[in-house]
């Protein structure tokens, strides 16, 4: 008996470019970005003015009872009180994904269904909690303060709230986190340990979660939303932050057949590699990312020439984008005609722990719905991109094999490979 094949069978989107699959696909097809001026950045204390905001949610207040979610979602008070803003996004994305996949309650809560999640926690709630602890004492702090704010908040809340009985944990490799979550979720199914895995990525989208990156000089200080996030452009000056949540459901072939599930694509395999270089900067030659791509292709049984599209990690930082271009050239050659390469972060901004599963989910919809997303906002291509086929408009045809890259702090790199079903 061979290892079971794994398929993507459900998606849920709460993103800066749409709150459901249809609007996300529409934004990707028409290269519509989700970047806006953000009121808490208007002060002179913030060198950064733009954020790729999640519209329709009001979750900036430190008091969760002030929060509002879009019509159609209901979160009871007992649910909301232990959630971070990214937990609210994720709760809604879970509901979307479950509805999308058509899962019955018994198919969610059983020993063969697990959940892996990735979130950076909630610096905003953690900070408010510490202030309250210092001002009025720890015994007046909300009892749910810890589970709402630390990095495991998504898995704590979703596993309990959706009565998950199988494997569950969280991943913490910064911007590669949900890539690791996807990869290890895939492994759980391949190893026969689980039949079905939810993969969840989420991040807050507020001053406390994003502004600290300005201190690293990592954020764009542009004020024009069409110029701020422009991966591969020669004049790029940093990334634009975003939050939200995306949920991807992976299922074994047997479950797909048993349920008669609709399939987005096959999850062929994944690979990872590390830079061993710098805590914050990527290796100049993209050493770890090159290894991740090579391993992912080898594990998937796919030759470089078979890859039609790469959804790049490229966040629009001067150093990071170049590293990735060099790694891509090292793996795929410098012919300059294929595979197509784009970064959807030009539209969405960079979602940190969220970004990897978000971008793999974009690839999954592209494979199913028949398009290849373009890389927006490029005025003058970086000379380093010579020899790489940067796709600057969305193509109305689907790739057959798509690859999605992610890189996190410390030089952690993950690549996943998806194939049209």
């Amino acid at each position, binding site marked *: 008996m061979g290892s079971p094949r794994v398929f993507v069978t459900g998606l849920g989107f709460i993103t800066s470019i749409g709150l459901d699959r249809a609007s996300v696909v529409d934004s990707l097809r028409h290269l519509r970005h989700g970047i806006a001026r953000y009121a808490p950045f208007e002060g002179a204390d913030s060198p950064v003015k733009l954020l790729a905001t999640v519209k329709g949610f009001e979750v900036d207040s430190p008091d969760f009872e002030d929060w509002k979610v879009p019509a159609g979602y209901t979160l009871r008070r*007992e649910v909301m009180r232990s959630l971070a803003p990214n937990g609210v996004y994720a709760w809604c994305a879970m509901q979307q994904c479950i509805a999308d996949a058509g899962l019955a309650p018994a198919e969610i809560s059983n020993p063969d269904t697990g959940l892996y999640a990735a979130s950076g926690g909630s610096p905003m709630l953690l900070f408010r909690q510490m202030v309250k602890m210092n001002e*009025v004492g720890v015994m007046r702090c909300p*009892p749910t303060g810890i589970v709402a704010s630390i990095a495991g908040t998504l898995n704590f809340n979703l596993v309990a709230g959706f009565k998950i009985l199988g494997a569950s944990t969280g991943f913490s490799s910064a911007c590669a986190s949900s890539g690791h979550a996807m990869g290890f979720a895939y492994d759980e199914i391949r190893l026969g340990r689980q039949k079905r895995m939810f993969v969840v990525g989420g991040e807050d989208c507020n001053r406390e979660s994003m502004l600290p990156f300005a201190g690293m000089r990592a954020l764009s200080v542009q004020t024009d939303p069409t110029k701020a996030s422009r991966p591969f452009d020669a004049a790029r000056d940093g990334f634009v932050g975003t939050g939200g949540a995306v949920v991807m459901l992976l299922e074994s072939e047997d479950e797909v057949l048993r349920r008669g599930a609709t399939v987005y694509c096959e999850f062929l395999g994944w690979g990872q590699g590390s830079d061993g270089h710098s805590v914050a900067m990527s290796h100049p030659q993209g050493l770890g990312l090159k290894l991740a791509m090579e391993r992912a292709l080898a594990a998937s049984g796919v030759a470089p020439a078979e890859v039609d599209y790469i959804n790049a990690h490229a966040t629009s930082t001067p150093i990071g984008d170049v590293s990735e271009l060099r790694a891509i050239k090292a793996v795929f050659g410098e012919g300059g005609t294929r595979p197509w390469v784009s970064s959807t972060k030009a539209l969405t901004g960079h979602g940190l722990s969220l970004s990897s599963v978000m971008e793999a989910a974009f690839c999954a919809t592209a494979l199913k719905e028949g398009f290849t997303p373009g890389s927006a906002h490029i005025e003058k291509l970086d000379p380093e991109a010579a020899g790489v086929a940067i796709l600057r408009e969305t193509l109305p045809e689907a790739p057959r094999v798509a690859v999605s890259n992610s890189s996190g702090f410390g030089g952690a790199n993950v690549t996943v490979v998806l194939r049209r079903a």
Partner: protein
Amino acid sequence: MASATNNPSTAQSGVPTPEETQLRESLKRCSPAVVEAAVRYRATKDVQLVPTVVLGIIERFLEPGAAERLRHADDDVRVIEDLGLDSLTLMEAVILIEEVVQISINNDELRSLRTVGDIKVFIDHKVRGLPPPQPSKYLPLEQVAAVMPQQPPFLFVREATLSSAWATGTYTITGDETFLAGHFKDNPIFPASIMLEALGQLAVLYLLEAPSSQLGAPVDPKTIFFTGAEGVRCHRVCRPGDVLKLSVKPKRLRMPLATFEGHIRVGQERAAVAEEVSLTFGFLVEAPKSAEPAPQAASTPPAS
């Protein structure tokens, strides 16, 4: 606290103090009457205001249906089982109560607060600076059966909660009670006389097990007998499947007579009332002071 004004009108007429502003912010999801009661309490320390504040804070955490229930609740309504608060929400409520009435409640104390009455009495003791009251105690069926002189098939209290001021219990009519075969033919209805018996049994349990009862000495279960009842009225026919919610409160306790008032509800409906149920009782025979306790063992119930 030292800066709090002693004149309630100052706070109302002048600019609110930072303390009052903080208090109003903390209570912003409570009703205006509760906020005003809390502001007045801070200014006057009038303990009469505390129940309004405490119930108002609990209500703010309840679903609308349960809030309505709280407004018409007896003190024996249980906050978790009856009002649907989970333990974390109870903790949230207690933290807000602590902040507003400026007291501290430790974990053991928090665990002992099962009913609305427990919370009211507890907070009242705290703000008056009295030692905390004895918490109510819960007895599952095994413990009820272990201390009661009545035994199945003639035991009509299945679980009970006892405090120094009241006792509550339940009895679920199973339909297997032998007397239902004849009461009535092809029409099983729980006899009113047995409903009165159930209230009497709960009163017996109170005499034997209530924490810090005002009796002063342990009661001998072999000495308790029914003497009379007054003002007994039935309001509802009870059938198999009904859960009788029994409650009794002592009206007079003085050896050898104990008088209780009792109520039975099914769900939210009144089923029966007894204005007075009276029992005679005697204390366990005192062993000589400082004697070994061993000889007494024979006169206590076997399982106690």
